[in-house]
């Protein structure tokens, strides 16, 4: 008997599988487990003192109330805007769909804190835009966006694309015959919408609402830019202020706070999960989108309406941001004499931290993107082609660090890495590595999802053909599978890069001198009143983001449908 034949292959298989399980465990499970431990047993001892103190503090509940108000308000606005746009784009015969989807989804890819600053520039007394048309409020008057309404407005605009995308994905799978049958039965378009489309779209709609709620709840950039000056703390900003003001001494306290926000988020996620029991990432091949409604005479007005909306939520704030970045100091009216590139010059050549941040953010984002692809390609191989109970668990836990608010992961990482690592005695706390760790944990699922959907489109016989040719697993992964999923992997990598590049939530809590990210530097400019520098930095990130998004469109033809959110 030849029991040893095939032993080497089995060992190879299992060691790869278990390394991946270990990586996912360290990235996704370990930090959250550590956080849980801290909340129950602060400093290693079971005690409820911290828990009781935090939960009986008035500030905790004020921030919780604020968080709920802004998250629910932002969600409501996002659902109305995103839902209506999704229905119009998916079900009617408007023209220029691709360009519109790109413009409509773009705000979601821009850093929230930059969006918030841009909106401040639109409405403030020093608004270059309003000054241009002579409508600026009196100097010294308070910017109306420093308010819960302001936070809700910007949250709603930021996350409307999220609702749009979920609902649109649902509408894509709806056969147009269902609508046509109702129309043929004599129902008016609005009746069809009410009785056919919306009931069928309940699961994606609820999913979108839950996703949007969790994102609004966890958002740090917008309430930080608008709420801190407006003295309107929400849970993420409360955690930030406590930690920034008092340092690691209050770790147990902020651990409880982040558990609280995590708890609220989990309720949202569970609700989403309940509605999405039967979702899978497979892409249906019948992609005949239901564009059943002809607008006829209404087409032009609807198109004008949609592009006006796009102009309001994208172009107006961006123009305001760019104009601010071109003046020497806030309040100077812009004209050909005052316009200057000195802010950019200062950022790129005069300010050490900004230059450092540019390098840091670039290398952190690129490293995270490449490393995640390296993990995700073999991991997706096992997830899609070697299903088991263990792998279903792995699939589930990879979602956690992304689904939970970023502050939760950041606090968990601080707890995990505050002491030097066991065995090697090195500490990664206060270095750039702790940020990288969080990026890997948080964005793993962003790379995994497109790669998984690519696997579903690959004929497994291609792998089996390599197998009978004698190629072992690692060789098959590298020479056959990787080239086949490369377009999706590239898209995933770019998605990770863009998200990490614009990220603030995690790095605001984890940065140290020398490991600043662009988000951190932007935020400190903004907090310090240097709005023109912040605007210039924000403009730079918007430019990089837009260029990268556009470049992905070159890949579009070779990607599974739905991998690039900004492509219709």
């Amino acid at each position, binding site marked *: 008997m030849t029991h040893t034949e095939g032993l080497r292959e089995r060992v190879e298989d299992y060691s790869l599988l278990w390394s991946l399980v270990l990586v996912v465990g360290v990235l996704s499970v370990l930090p959250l487990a550590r956080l849980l431990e801290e909340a129950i047993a602060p400093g290693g001892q079971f005690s409820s003192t911290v828990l009781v103190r935090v939960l009986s503090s008035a500030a905790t509940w004020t921030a919780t109330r604020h968080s709920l108000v802004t998250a629910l308000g932002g969600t409501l606005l996002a659902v109305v805007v995103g839902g209506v746009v999704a229905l119009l784009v998916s079900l009617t015969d408007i023209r220029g769909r691709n360009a519109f989807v790109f413009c409509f989804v773009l705000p979601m890819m821009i850093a929230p804190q930059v969006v918030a600053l841009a909106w401040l520039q639109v409405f403030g007394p020093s608004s270059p835009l309003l000054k241009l048309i002579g409508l600026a409020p009196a100097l010294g008057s308070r910017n109306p966006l420093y308010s819960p309404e302001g936070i809700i407005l910007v949250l709603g605009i930021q996350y409307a694309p999220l609702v749009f995308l979920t609902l649109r994905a649902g509408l894509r799978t709806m056969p147009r015959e269902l609508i046509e049958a109702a129309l043929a039965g004599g129902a008016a378009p609005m009746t069809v919408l009410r009785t056919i489309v919306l009931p069928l779209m309940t699961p994606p709609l609820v999913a979108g609402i839950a996703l949007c709620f969790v994102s609004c709840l966890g958002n740090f950039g917008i309430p930080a830019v608008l709420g801190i000056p407006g003295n309107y703390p929400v849970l993420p900003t409360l955690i930030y202020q406590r930690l920034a003001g008092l340092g690691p001494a209050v770790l147990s306290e902020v651990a409880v706070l982040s558990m609280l926000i995590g708890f609220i988020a989990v309720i949202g996620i569970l609700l989403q999960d309940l509605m999405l029991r039967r979702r899978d990432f497979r892409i249906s091949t019948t992609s005949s989108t239901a564009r059943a409604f002809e607008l006829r005479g209404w087409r032009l007005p609807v198109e004008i309406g949609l592009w006006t909306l796009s102009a309001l939520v994208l172009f107006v704030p961006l123009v305001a941001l760019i104009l601010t970045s071109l003046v020497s100091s806030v309040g100077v009216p812009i004209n050909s004499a005052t316009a200057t590139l000195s802010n950019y010059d200062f950022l790129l050549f005069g300010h050490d931290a900004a230059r450092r941040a540019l390098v840091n953010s670039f290398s952190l984002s690129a490293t995270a993107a490449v490393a995640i692809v390296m993990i995700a390609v073999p991991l997706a191989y096992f997830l899609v082609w070697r299903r088991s109970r263990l792998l279903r668990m792995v699939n589930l836990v990879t979602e956690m660090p992304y689904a939970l608010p970023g502050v939760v992961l950041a606090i968990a990482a601080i707890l995990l890495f505050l002491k030097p690592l066991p065995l090697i005695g090195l500490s990664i706390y206060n270095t750039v590595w702790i940020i990288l760790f969080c990026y890997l944990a948080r964005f793993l699922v962003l790379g995994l999802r497109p790669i998984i959907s690519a696997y579903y489109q690959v004929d497994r016989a291609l792998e*089996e053909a390599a197998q009978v*040719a004698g190629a072992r697993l690692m060789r098959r992964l590298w020479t056959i599978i990787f080239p086949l999923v490369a377009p999706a992997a590239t898209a995933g990598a770019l998605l990770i890069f863009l998200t990490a590049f614009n990220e603030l939530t995690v790095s605001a809590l984890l940065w140290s001198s020398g490991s600043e990210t662009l988000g951190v530097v932007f935020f400190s400019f903004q907090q310090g009143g240097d709005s023109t520098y912040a605007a210039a930095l924000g403009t730079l990130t918007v430019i990089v983001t837009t260029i990268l998004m556009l470049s992905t469109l070159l890949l579009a033809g070779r990607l599974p449908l739905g991998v690039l959110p900004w492509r219709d």
Partner: protein
Amino acid sequence: MARLTIERATKSFGALRAVDDVSLDVKDGEFVAILGASGCGKTTLLRLIAGFERIDGGRILIGDNAVSTTQAHVPPERRRIGIVFQAYALWPHMTVAENVAYGLSVAGVRDPERARRVAAALTLVELDGYGERRPALLSGGQRQRVALARCLVTEPSLVLLDEPLANLDVHLRASMEDEFARFHERTGTTMIYITHDQAEAMALADRIAVMDEGRLLQFAAPSQLYREPANETVARFVGDGIVLPVAVRSVDGSGGCIADVYGHVVTMRCAPAQRAAGTALACLRSRDLAIVEPAAAGVSARVDRAIYQGGFFRLEAHVEGAPDKLLHLAAPEPSALEPGAAIKVDIADGWIIPGTGGN
């Protein structure tokens, strides 16, 4: 080159026994077709031989090497077999030459030896000069040949072909059939050919294994399969056989017998072990049936349908008084036989299906 021995192989998926107690002994250099309708278990059997699935019971040997047993499992990459996949599974990101060279590279064969063998394999399938093309630019038949070259370049001991002609159009099929036959002749490789098309299997194979619901029904040479089906399912499946109840009056002990088909006495063939029996089943072929004068000896039948098939009619009829006993035969053009017409059918030959009575 190697024999393939399958001993009582069993594979279940949940409650479904996809392969159920199948034994096959394929000789070195033999061309064997595994024939069956979709879902009969033939693809699972192929995947067991290839090693993509683990066996639940029994064992599989390639040469003298037990590659699948309930205790040990040699992975596909170590079995030294070749497979031509149904949709060819050519790697789209590689050229034709790279596709063919892959197995050699894996085995550590380097240029110039590798290039020489790739060129030789491409010559063998008559694709000289196509090495630098991408598979996407080739026709179906050319892709098929690349897949063949890829699987043969490493000189596997055993080649598995999974419905290799299913994706080709009718014209191409005939010429590819020729190609497989010549190919087998030239290389002498043991080949297992999975198909649902009996014409293909008959034309190509030394022996055919007929499968149904996971079980092996008969494993025999094509002509024996046609002339002497081992059971009713094979009789009906192969060559569109007609199965009618008969009484075996007498046997001569050397493969001949006298049978009574609805009162019509016919000389038929049977197994030497066959004994006289009041009821048995006979397999009849439509070419052995002929319409005779109403007064002549024969089986009375009534026409159900007459289907024009170009030059002749296929008459479908049932035995008079037994509407579920169906038979069919060819009637030359012109034919005035309408549905409902009474006919008399003479039977020239038949085969008593073993195990249906008298043994």
